[in-house]
């Protein structure tokens, strides 16, 4: 066996409690004030939108621990040319692992040996400056990612062609649409030529077509024999790209092996049982808390609350909410349904585009979302739910609610479509034969 491209040996990262998250006297005071009154300090910090790791940290502190281990004794090797996926729930230590591998921060103990030039993409478009033109930003971003100016110059045409932006390359990027911006940013990243590539969920950007292009580019890169370490929530992408996977849980490496086995294990044990905890008691949410979802029900056509919907029936989702901050900002609700098994997106209900007026939310109430002719095949689905007020996310639940669908007569033909038909979603349609003879 050849020498490993990345070998990670007993890697640990400890955060000392009280040293991250709260930097100012005000934050510190707020934290202690909440503790003193016997309240859950997590509540105060959730509102500011602290990340997953921070939540685990606060939990550790409450359990009376002095330290918090974001990573603990993680060891594994990645062989040259392998594409390895890193899977784990929020707060499992994925980001910390990536940060250490990309040398953004140091581990507390342990060692990593990396053989070959390393390029890491934790974000696309790092260092983009709005006032600079597309061309200037390509150079800036390329050198930040570790390329030489010469290299960027050599690849400039390729990058511009990949981003499909040749007409706008000398326009300041502040005039770009967000789609153009992301395309340019990814194009630079895609043309890095390191031997080892570390990729965070950057694929979760841009439109579907561009995502497919990015995924294709990653596959090309892996075929060129380069080593890739890939972190994503998108199981479909992980399965498509990776040969092996590593499952992290609570900072520890729980399983390593064949990508199929690992994703199955993850989906079985790690999917949050969304419906088991009432929505208002859940803590796996982010946002500033100015609006909070407090409950939900799903009703059928006859206004009966149901546990499982039938394909093809009209359902109404009722979302209860509370609003603490009243202002004139428009509110948007985002309701995205994805498969509970693969996390593949099925459809999206986004009030900003599908509702003619903006939603006016009061202090407390219910949002009713009606979906006529539910286009889903039988199975378990999860809903990514969020509410935006103006530009800020007020409440977001990645696995907001669970939706079970059973067989139903979608087409009104008395026949059922089989799940094994791989049809994605169901759509109404007609057939017609026009015989000319």
């Amino acid at each position, binding site marked *: 066996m050849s020498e490993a491209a990345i070998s990670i040996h007993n890697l640990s990262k400890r*955060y000392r409690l009280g*040293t*991250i998250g709260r*930097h*100012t006297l005000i934050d510190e005071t707020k934290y202690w004030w909440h503790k003193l009154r016997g309240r859950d300090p997590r509540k105060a910090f959730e509102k500011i939108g602290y990340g997953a790791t921070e939540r685990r940290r606060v939990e550790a502190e409450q359990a009376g621990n002095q330290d918090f281990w974001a990573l603990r004794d993680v060891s594994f090797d990645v062989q040259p040319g392998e594409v390895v996926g890193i899977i784990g729930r929020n707060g499992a230590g994925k980001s910390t692992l990536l*940060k*250490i*591998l*990309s*040398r*953004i*921060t*140091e*581990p*507390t*103990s*342990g*060692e*990593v*040996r*990396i*053989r*070959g*030039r*390393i390029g*890491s993409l*934790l*974000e696309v478009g*790092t*260092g983009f*400056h709005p*006032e*600079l033109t597309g061309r*200037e930003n390509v*150079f*800036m971003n390329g*050198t*930040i*990612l*570790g*390329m*030489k*100016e*010469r290299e960027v110059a050599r690849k400039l045409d390729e990058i511009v062609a990949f981003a499909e932006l040749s007409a706008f390359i000398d326009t*300041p990027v502040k005039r770009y649409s967000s789609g153009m911006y992301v395309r340019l940013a990814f194009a630079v990243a895609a043309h890095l030529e390191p*031997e080892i590539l570390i990729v965070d969920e950057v694929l979760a950007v841009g439109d579907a077509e561009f995502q497919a292009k990015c995924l294709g580019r990653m596959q090309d890169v892996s075929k060129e024999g380069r080593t890739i370490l890939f972190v994503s929530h998108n199981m479909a992408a992980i399965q498509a790209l990776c040969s092996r996977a590593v499952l992290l849980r609570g900072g520890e490496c729980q399983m390593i092996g064949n990508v199929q086995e690992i994703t199955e294990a993850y989906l079985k044990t790690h999917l949050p049982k969304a419906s088991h905890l009432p929505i208002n008691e859940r803590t796996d949410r982010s946002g500033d808390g100015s609006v909070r979802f407090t409950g939900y029900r799903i009703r059928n056509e006859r206004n009966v609350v149901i546990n499982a919907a039938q394909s093809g029936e009209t359902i109404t989702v009722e979302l209860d909410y509370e609003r603490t901050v009243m202002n004139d900002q428009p509110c948007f609700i985002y309701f995205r349904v994805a498969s509970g098994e693969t996390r593949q997106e099925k459809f999206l209900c986004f009030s900003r585009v599908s509702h003619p007026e903006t939603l006016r939310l009061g202090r407390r109430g219910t949002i009713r979302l009606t979906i006529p002719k539910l286009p889903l095949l039988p199975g378990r689905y999860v809903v990514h739910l969020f509410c935006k007020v103006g530009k800020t996310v007020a409440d977001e639940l990645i696995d907001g609610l669970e939706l079970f669908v059973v067989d139903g007569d979608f087409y009104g033909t008395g026949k059922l479509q089989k799940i094994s038909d791989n049809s994605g979603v169901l759509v109404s349609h007609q057939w017609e034969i026009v015989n000319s003879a």
Partner: protein
Amino acid sequence: MQTTVIRANSPWWRIPVRELWEYRDLLTLWVKRELTAVYRQTIIGPLWFVIQPLLTTIVFTVIFGTVAKISTDGIPQFIFYMSGTLFWNYFQGVLNQGATSLVSNTNILTKVYFPRLIMPLSGVFVQFAHLALNSLLFLGFYFWYYFRGSAMEPNAWVFFLPLLILQTGLLGLGFGLWVSAATIKYRDLRFALPFLVQLWMYGTPIVYPAKLVVKPILKFVLWLNPMTAVVEFSRYALTGRGSPELWGLGLSWFVTALVLVSGLFLFNKVQRTFVDTI
């Protein structure tokens, strides 16, 4: 094939010189970006950086020269204040840019690795460009006064000026590194810095000649400030007036070296894990 080893507690004394050299293109582009991005969509562009010290000089001339009537040692007031301001602005610019380099670039530094020293180091060059621009203006005034027969006798010390400029840059860098490392822990420093720098300016012979300070202990304190020698010697080089103290120059070099080296080490130690606390 290059091997990167990531380990806990990499030694604070190992400054990644080779890596810095490998990233020189980034330094160049970063300096360019800092210089050009600021002026986009402004009408007079870089001229803003000339107007500001010019106004400072005029204000000093009016307040300290005309109203307070502080001696300028026989040097034309305008030249006296402007030469001091020139060096002080360079020092202050490098210091400020270095001091805020980690905190203000968090979004980049938490996403990608490159030798962190690039950020404060770029300040030395960016501010040097401003200094060069301002020097042109200064030289214009200087020659105008010179040919009108003002009492100024430039001497061989002018060849020493580049070294004084370099020293100013390195000194600003050294203090900048110190402050940026300390700001990670104590954010308050960010608010205190402008005030402290202002005070420091009055502790430097910019609006008064060093000659005015005669009490030995005060004189020692004044020359302990490494900027004193820079300002005093540059003025002496250009006008032949002032009180250049050779021991003061030596002391100032010593302090500069001390601040720079300790700043480099401290910064190098802090940059390893600063993203955890930022």
